[in-house]
């Protein structure tokens, strides 16, 4: 007769281990026993060892120990160690004057509501650019007023729709410098003005309105390709000089800072130069707007994440889509506000980011640093079932 294999339950195993431990101790006399057990306890506590409740074997407990202070000449970072934190974003609202079009206004208000009802509140809120549609003073003013009702502090970024009516005069009056940097909990954050365009309007004798309308057309081929520009690249280089290579860096940019699809200006002309400046850092994340879609890319040490828009979704470009991108489902025209939303970014202690897309009318989608770091092998976000074609 064949012997059936004996399968021990967890409980049985637990008691067997417990008995074995005490059996070994029984051979000692009482005094030695106390010494041994005391020593064992002390040693265990000193090493962070606990006795796990699931079994009677000592288990090492791993704590996410905070990174040691960045020493030396990183006085800019100070003694702040990298902790993890979350910030939220709202992007690409493309506001028209309320009397003309209130749909985009209502959608921005919805995003503001979303962010205001987050609990716990994010550390700050990034506004990703393109607050106005045609750069008009009324549009910018209305946008500024709406953003005042955001509870967390707002970090502004400029987009091309804000800029090319008056070359950013009104925007700068309202919001200050278009490029700046700040430190937050050990992470160095840079906000770039990455939608500069070479002059195409003077030779054509365009009025400011015509120039703005040209830039406002995504597929309008007259406008130049976006660029950060040599002046701002020099500023970026200088700004980053004092940080060591292990400082986590996050770059906020409106254009993607890589080459995706040139005809739609899903493109930064001098992306290569900007990436070269960022290359020496271990962990860099670029959070960008303009593309109005779920977008993920990785080039070397740099992770790129697109932000959703609150105004309208762009389709995926016919070519150039980064391999890492998990598409969002095709927007359903019969479902108002489909493919739109806002979101949050969770910054881990090591500076890598997990991106959450809070897509309205859909389940939220998260693209984690583990997915990007593993080049798409691990933690793969759910695939769409209605891909672009």
């Amino acid at each position, binding site marked *: 007769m064949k012997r059936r294999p004996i399968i021990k339950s967890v409980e049985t195993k637990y008691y067997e281990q417990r008995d074995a431990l005490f059996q070994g101790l029984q051979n000692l006399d009482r005094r030695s026993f106390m010494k041994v057990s005391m020593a064992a306890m002390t040693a265990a506590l000193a090493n962070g060892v606990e006795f796990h409740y699931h079994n009677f074997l000592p288990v090492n407990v791993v704590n996410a120990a905070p990174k040691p202070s960045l020493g030396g000449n990183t006085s800019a970072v100070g003694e702040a160690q990298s902790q993890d934190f979350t910030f939220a974003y709202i992007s690409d609202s493309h506001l028209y004057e309320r009397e003309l079009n209130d749909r985009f206004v209502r959608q921005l208000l919805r995003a503001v509501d979303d962010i205001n009802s987050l609990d716990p509140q994010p550390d700050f809120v990034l506004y990703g650019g393109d607050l106005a549609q045609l750069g008009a003073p009324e549009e910018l003013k209305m946008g500024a007023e709406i953003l005042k009702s955001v509870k967390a502090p707002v970090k502004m970024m400029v987009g091309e729709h804000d800029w090319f009516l008056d070359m950013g005069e009104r925007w700068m009056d309202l919001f200050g410098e278009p490029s700046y940097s700040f430190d937050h909990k050990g992470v160095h954050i840079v906000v770039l003005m990455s939608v500069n365009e070479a002059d195409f309007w003077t030779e054509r004798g365009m009025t400011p309105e015509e120039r703005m309308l040209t830039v406002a057309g*995504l597929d309008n*081929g007259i406008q130049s390709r976006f660029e950060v520009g040599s002046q701002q690249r020099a500023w970026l280089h200088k700004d980053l000089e004092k940080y060591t290579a292990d400082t986590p860096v996050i770059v906020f940019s409106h254009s993607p800072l890589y080459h995706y699809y040139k005809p739609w200006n899903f493109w930064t002309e001098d992306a290569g130069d900007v990436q070269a400046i960022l290359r020496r850092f271990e962990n860099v994340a670029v959070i960008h707007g303009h593309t109005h879609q779920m977008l993920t890319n990785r080039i070397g040490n740099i992770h790129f994440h697109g932000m959703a828009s609150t105004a309208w979704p762009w*389709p995926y470009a016919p070519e150039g889509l980064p391999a890492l991108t998990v598409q969002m489902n*095709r927007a359903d*025209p*019969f479902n108002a506000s489909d493919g739109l939303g806002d979101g949050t970014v969770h910054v881990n202690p090591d500076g890598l980011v997990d991106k959450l897309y809070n897509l309205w009318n859909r389940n939220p989608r998260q693209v984690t640093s583990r997915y990007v770091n593993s080049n798409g092998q691990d933690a793969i976000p759910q695939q769409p079932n209605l891909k672009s074609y």
Partner: protein
Amino acid sequence: MRKAGLMTLAVLAASISGWVGVNAEDADPKRAQTARANAEDFAAMEAATAQGVDPATMSQWRRGGGERGTDGVAEELEKHKVTSPTGNAHLIGKGQGATYGNVTEHNVKTWDRETFKAAVEGSRVFHSSDELGSEIGVSCDMYHPDGSNTHPETYPKFQVQLGRVALLRDMINWCIENPVKGEVLKPDAPQMRALEAYIYAQRKGTPLSYGKR
């Protein structure tokens, strides 16, 4: 109508005067000026003796592009790429030789040019919230840059939200009425015909797959 007719003649006269100034005898500036003045006189003469053009002909002329004619094409193409029609050069010299004779190069150029103009006109309407009659400043290219994501090859298909099997024009009209907030176009309206031409043009080469979702 009369004014518009006269305007055409003025344009015609202006272009004639430009042409007149090119002759060798007119190299002398004074003579050239006289030539131009004569062109103006000519325009005045024409105006005085002009007959009103009937409304039907005028509107047909305007539908063909009016004064814009082929000028609008260059302007539109500067801004937006439009796929060129399938070439027909291989047909030159072919044909059965009956009534109209064999296909000539002139024929092929005319077909291609006129077809292309229709698609370019469609691009113009597609990108213009005014032409679409949008009350909220929205144009088609805001969801469909370069006519992308329109999938004309999938029509006719049943669309439950429209309650029937939809053709491309039904979807265009739904979009114009809802996201664009303009007035619905008649199926034979020049803007509808232009939009369809452009949308099909941009999808040239995609196999037909009617019913595909």
